[in-house]
C-alpha cells in the first residue's frame, strides 16, 4: 500500500507476482480437467453404482439407483477370504521383493559406484523386463512352472514336491509372480536413495564402535527409508489389486483368487455391477488406511 505513494511506478511491481500465479493456475487446468473427467467422475459413478439395487423382474445386469448399503455387508460376507488373500499375497510379495531388491539396489548404488559402466548395465538389466509385455512374461512363467516342465519334474524327482504336486495354481506361484513382476518398482526407488548415500556416515558408524551389521541397521537402513517406503508402496498398492497373476489363466487357480479377480468376475462375468463397485470401493478404502498407517509409522516425513 505504501508503494501507492510513489505513483504509477508502483503498479507493475505489485501486479507482477499476481500475474505469475494466474499463469500457474491456467497451466493446472488441463491436469485438473483430466482428473475431474477420468478420476472423479468414474469414482462418483462407482460409489453410486455400489448402492444400486436390481430392477424388479428385470434382465441380468439391470440395476436402478437406490441406497442399498447392504451391498457392502453382502460382499464382505461373501468375499472376505479374497480380501485376506489379496492383502496376504501382496504383503508377502512386497516382503520378498524388498528382500531381493535391497541387496541388488545396494550393490548397484553403493558398491558399483567406482564402475559407472557396470552401474548403467545393471540398471538396464533391472528395467529390461519392461521391454516385454507384462502378460507375456507372466505366461512365460506359467510355461516354466507347468506340470510337464523340467523344473517340476526335477523337483518331483528330488521329492521336494510330492508326486501329485503342482507349482501353477498355488499360492506359491501367485506370490512368486507378483514378486517377480514388482521387483523393478521396488529396486529403482531404493537405488535412488542408496545412490546418494554418503558413505562417510558408514565410516563414522564404524569409528563409533558399531559393527558392520549394527551400522547397517542403525545408519544405512534409516537413511534409505524414503526409498524403502516408496518402493514398498509402489509394490504393495498395485499388487493388492492385481488380478493377472492370481487368475486361473495365468499362475493362479480357483483357490488363489484375489479381490481383483472377483471384481473382474462380477463386472464382466456375473454382471453384478453393484457388488463389483462395492468391492472396488472397499479395496480402495482399505489400501488407503493401510498406507496411511504405514507412512505415519515409518516416520519418514523429514527424510522425504
Amino acid at each position, binding site marked *: 500500500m505504501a508503494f501507492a505513494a510513489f505513483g504509477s511506478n508502483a503498479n507493475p511491481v505489485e501486479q507482477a507476482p499476481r500475474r505469475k500465479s494466474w499463469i500457474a493456475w491456467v497451466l493446472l487446468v488441463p491436469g485438473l480437467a483430466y482428473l475431474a473427467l477420468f478420476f472423479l467422475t468414474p469414482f462418483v459413478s462407482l460409489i453410486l453404482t455400489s448402492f444400486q439395487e436390481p430392477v424388479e423382474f428385470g434382465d441380468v445386469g439391470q440395476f436402478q439407483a437406490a441406497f442399498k448399503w447392504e451391498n457392502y455387508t453382502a460382499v464382505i460376507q461373501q468375499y472376505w477370504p479374497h480380501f485376506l488373500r489379496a492383502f496376504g499375497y501382496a504383503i508377502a510379495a512386497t516382503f520378498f521383493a524388498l528382500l531381493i531388491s535391497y541387496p541388488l539396489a545396494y550393490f548397484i548404488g553403493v558398491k558399483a559406484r567406482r564402475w559407472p559402466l557396470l552401474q548403467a548395465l545393471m540398471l538396464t538389466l533391472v528395467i529390461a523386463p519392461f521391454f516385454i509385455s507384462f502378460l507375456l512374461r507372466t505366461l512365460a512363467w506359467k510355461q516354466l512352472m507347468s506340470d510337464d516342465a523340467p523344473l517340476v519334474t526335477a523337483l518331483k524327482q528330488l521329492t521336494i514336491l510330492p508326486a501329485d504336486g503342482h507349482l501353477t495354481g498355488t499360492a506359491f506361484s501367485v506370490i512368486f509372480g507378483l514378486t517377480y513382476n514388482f521387483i523393478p518398482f521396488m529396486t529403482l526407488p531404493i537405488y535412488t536413495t542408496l545412490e546418494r548415500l*554418503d558413505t*562417510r*556416515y558408514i*565410516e*563414522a*558408524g*564404524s*569409528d*563409533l*564402535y*558399531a*559393527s*558392520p551389521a*549394527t*551400522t547397517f541397521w*542403525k*545408519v544405512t537402513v*534409516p*537413511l534409505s*527409508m524414503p526409498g524403502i517406503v516408496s518402493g514398498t508402496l509402489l509394490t504393495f498398492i498395485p499388487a493388492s489389486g492385481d488380478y493377472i497373476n492370481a487368475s486361473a489363466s495365468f499362475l493362479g487357480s480357483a483357490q488363489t483368487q484375489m479381490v481383483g479377480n472377483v471384481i473382474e468376475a462380477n463386472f464382466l462375468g456375473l454382471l453384478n455391477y453393484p457388488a463389483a463397485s462395492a468391492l472396488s470401493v472397499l479395496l480402495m478404502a482399505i489400501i488407503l488406511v493401510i498406507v496411511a498407517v504405514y507412512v505415519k509409522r515409518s516416520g519418514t516425513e*523429514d*527424510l522425504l
Partner: protein
Amino acid sequence: MGAGAFAEAGADLELVGISKRFPGFTAIEDLDLRIPAGSFFALLGPSGCGKTTTLRLVAGLEQPTAGRILIGGKDVTNVKSFKRPVNTVFQSYALFPHMTVIENVAFGLRRRAIKDPVAKAHEALRLVELDHLASRKPQQLSGGQQQRVALARAVVNRPALLLLDEPLGALDLKLRRQMQLELKSIQTEVGLTFLHVTHDQEEAMTMADTVAVMNKGEIEQMGAPEELYELPRTAFVANFLGQSNLFTGDVTSSTGTSIVVVVAGIKLEVPKERAQRHTGQVTIGVRPEKLILHTSAPTVTPGTNTLGPGRVTDVSFSGVSTQYQIAIPGIGLITVFAQNMVFGPVVNVGAEAWVAWTVDHGFGLLDEPEHTPKFSADTDTAAIAMQTRRELLAEIEDD
C-alpha cells in the same frame, strides 16, 4: 578396550614402516612415527601430503600396504576400525542426519553398552556448550555448532587416542580460539592422546606439544613447535612454518663455531651447531622478524650479518607489525617484520635500506642446493608483480 569401560588414560601410538599405495600414486612411503601417551601431536602439511591418509590408517578406515600400527603397544594393523580404541572428529563432521544431536553423541556409548549413555551425552554437550540444542537435528545447526557436536560425539567415548581431521576449519576466529583452548583443556584434563591433522600452521603451533611437518608422504621434521620454528632443517619446513629469507652460497671458510657462506659476494656467518651441513653449497636462512632494518649503513661488527644497501619495494602495515619488502641487488627480495614501536612505518617505498641480524639467529638447511629454489615461490611471484607494477608506472609517466 573392553565393552562398558572408558580408557583409563591415553595410549601411545606407533607407526612402523607404514606405506600406503593407491592405484596410480603413493600416499605414504615408509613412515615411522611414535606418539607418546598423553601428548597432543599435530601432523602439519599442505593438502595432498598424506596426513589425512595417515589418520585414516590409524582409525582403521584404510588398510596400509605395508607396515604395522600399534596402539598402546598392541598391534592393531588387522583390527577392524570398530574394535579400535580410537575416535575421529571428521572433517565433514559426518553427523547422522536421521538422529537428534543427543542421539548422535550417545551413539558410541550405546554401542559399547556404557551405563547412562544419555546422561553422559548431555555432559559432553555441556562441555561444548550445546546442551540446549540436544533435541535438534544436525541440519538445524550452524557449521560451527555441528563441529562442536562432532567433537562431543568423539570425546564422550573417552578414547585412548582421539583423531582430529582439521576439526576447526569451519569456525570463525573467535570460536576457533575458544575451541582450541577447550580442546587443550579436555586433553590435559582427561590425559588422552590427541592426533591432530591440520594444514594451519598457527593452529598446530599453538595447540600441539609436538608437531610433525609432512610433505609428499614423508615427515620432513618433527619436534616441539618452537624448535621447529627456530631451527627448521629443510626449506619446506622453513617456508611452510612461518616465513623465511633463504640464501644459497658456497661455504668458503669456517671458524671453530661457525661457517661462512658467500652469497652474491657477501659473507654471511651461520653458527655450526645451527647448520645441518658444513661444506659445499648450502642454503641458509633467517626469520623475517629477526632482521633489523637500518636506514643508513650500519657499522660492521663481529657477530652480525649485514646486507645492503637495497630498496624498499613494499610496506604493509598489519597492526602489531609492519612488513617490509626490500630488494637487494644480487640477492633478491628480503622480507622484514618490524614491531610498530612508533606510529606508522619507519621507512617508505623507494627508501634505501640495510638489514642486519645476529649470527646466532641464522640457520643452515639440509637440502641439496639443486633441490632448493633460491627464493620461495611466494616472494618470487611478489617480485614479478612488483616488476610489472614498476613497468606500468614507468609507462604512465612516459605518456
